[in-house]
């Protein structure tokens, strides 16, 4: 069981949260201009890093707010949570 630090409610068990996949995937500026392959890339293709991964989470059984988290895919350790819409923080610059 992960303990996830909701930015509004503090540490809560993972079962209270919903997962929203990779963060910072922007909706295409003009979807009609895309080829099928580019559209498929947007819809279905996601990064699969070994290490830090920026993800979207929603505290569905609590405050019902979306936020972003950087989780290490090897250790499940969540290094940082930050507001939805904020740019991805640079973890190399300290806590």
């Amino acid at each position, binding site marked *: 069981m992960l303990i996830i630090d909701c930015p509004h*409610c*503090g540490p*809560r068990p993972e*079962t*209270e949260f919903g997962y929203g996949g990779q963060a910072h995937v922007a909706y295409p500026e003009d979807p009609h201009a895309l080829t099928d392959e580019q559209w498929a890339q947007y819809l279905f293709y996601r990064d699969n890093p070994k290490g830090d991964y920026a993800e979207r989470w929603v505290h569905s*059984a*609590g*405050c*019902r*707010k979306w936020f972003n988290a950087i989780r290490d895919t090897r250790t499940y350790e969540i290094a940082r949570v930050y507001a939805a819409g904020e740019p991805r923080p640079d973890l190399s610059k300290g806590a």
Partner: protein
Amino acid sequence: MTDSTLTIEAPEGAAGSAGGAGGTNASASGADVGRAAVLAHRRSPAQDLADEMTQGSGQAVWLRELPFLTQVTLRAQPDGPSSEALAGALGVGLPTRVGEVAGAIDGIGVAVLWLSPDEFLAVAPDEAQTGVSPEAWAGRLSTAVGAGPGQVVDVSANRTTLELSGPRARSVLEKSCEIDLHPRAFPVGTAVVTLLESTGVIVWRTGEETWRVMPRASFTTHVVRWLLDGMREYC
């Protein structure tokens, strides 16, 4: 909503039933009789489980329903004009952080619970005790918000309130609630939205040994039976 046109008769033997004071007002005269009769017709989500709750309770922990509490949901950005107006109209202010309850932290009177940074739940006693209908209260609060950004909705029928009390009440809750309910983390006057096993509820500590669990109406039977099951070893 006015009720002067309502002519519903009180049901047979309804006086003094689930609503507590609901049926006792039936002797009043004039327009009040109509409203009192309406209140006497209400059925709370755990009404049919009252006997089960009594039988399942003991000296160490006991469970009962507090039916028909007035509940109004408030949406307003913190520090915005609407939240200031609401805080003034409520008379007890708005809570500012997770867990905080503004006003009557023991649940006797008007209390405002923090649900999310911009969502709050105002709780007041049953209309049968206060004489103020949820619609009227929500209307007053809505008027206070005016044209400002925000929302006020009567959600009294959304959740019911179960009260779990006794020296073993916390032990029963801790079986199913994963958050820290120890007094150092969860003192009297704390309320949070969380999961009780897999059911979303509000858990509100109204006294050292008194807890309110507020499930959605349709989950009430399940939550009552779940809590009774957890109480069995202490009763």
